[in-house]
């Protein structure tokens, strides 16, 4: 690997598909530079064939997550100065997902599992009905609000040991989403969703390693959401409402 000169970063970027390898580039270091800035510099000024994904650049869309020096991060809000080790960066696509090319991971399994865990809201009213008033202070709403800022970046999924070991496990983001909907009284698919998350590969597959809440760029607690689902499903099973 090339040593970084003063004022330069030595940036190793994954090139190719699953069987690709790292290629090292020299990128000028700048003040307040983000990891996404570095990747964009390589694509704009060194190699335009570099593939990666981003949209908003301000931590809202969740599309620019990558593995930076071994840890999944949202690259648009990650300053190089906080993660570069000796002026070096190693940037790879998100783990636990197929690689399309270079830094673009295939998010299909992530969103397929999100749907399998009942991630879609099932309305009980039509647009002709009046809007149902829900106070932010209602206990269920407080619990749901704690998890709804998920931007589906896939960082938790990429950092999860259980996802890596268990191909059937739906992952922290899907379960966090399910938990927010289980606490939304406007939703009409509670029984089906609880059955989905209580089955093999659901919330009970989680080993509570807590990497999801450690890595979550939004500081959410998918671990707490999963624990809530475990309790909810266990109570429903004991009442005979669930037949796994």
């Amino acid at each position, binding site marked *: 690997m090339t040593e970084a000169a003063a004022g330069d970063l030595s940036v190793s970027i994954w090139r190719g598909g699953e069987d690709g390898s790292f290629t090292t580039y020299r990128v000028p270091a700048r003040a307040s530079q983000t990891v996404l800035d570095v990747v964009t510099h390589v694509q704009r000024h060194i190699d335009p064939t570099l593939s990666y994904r981003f949209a908003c650049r301000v931590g809202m869309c969740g599309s620019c997550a990558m593995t930076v020096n071994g840890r999944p991060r949202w690259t648009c809000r990650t300053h190089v100065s906080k993660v570069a080790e000796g002026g070096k960066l190693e940037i790879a696509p998100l783990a636990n997902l197929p690689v399309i090319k270079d830094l673009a991971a295939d998010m299909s399994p992530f969103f397929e599992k999100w749907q399998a865990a009942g991630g879609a809201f099932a309305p009980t009213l039509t647009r002709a009905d009046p809007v149902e008033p829900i106070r932010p202070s209602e206990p269920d709403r407080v619990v749901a609000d704690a998890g709804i800022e998920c931007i589906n970046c896939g960082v938790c999924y990429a950092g999860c040991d259980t996802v890596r070991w*268990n191909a059937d496990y739906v992952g922290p983001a899907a379960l966090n989403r399910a938990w927010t909907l289980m606490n939304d009284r406007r939703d009409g698919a509670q029984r089906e969703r609880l059955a989905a998350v209580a089955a093999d590969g*659901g919330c009970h597959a989680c080993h509570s390693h807590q990497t999801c809440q450690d890595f979550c760029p939004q500081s959410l607690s998918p671990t707490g959401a999963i624990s809530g689902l475990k309790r909810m499903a266990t109570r*429903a099973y004991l009442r005979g409402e669930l037949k796994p």
Partner: protein
Amino acid sequence: MNVRLYLWQRGTAALMAPLVLIHVAVVFYATRQGLSAADILGRTRGSVAWGLFYTAFVAAAAIHAGIGLRTILAEWTPLGARGAALTATAFALLLAGLGARAVIAVVMP
């Protein structure tokens, strides 16, 4: 792991926690009192209470270990979900059989 297996595993863990403490306390008592094997067997043989205690212990251990091993095999070996379930079930039955044999040897008059 699904909710049914989760409940069985947590339930057997909760059952084993006091059983392990009692078992360890008995081991300490027996060693500190210098009880011989004959002394111990003299107290356990024909005892319905010790028979029920260790039968519950063996059953809980077999179920708990079987479910845990199923998860480990499914996650760490190429056996797959079905292969892991069958192997873990066989292991649980082996544990139950060996445990039952030990309980019978200690409790039956």
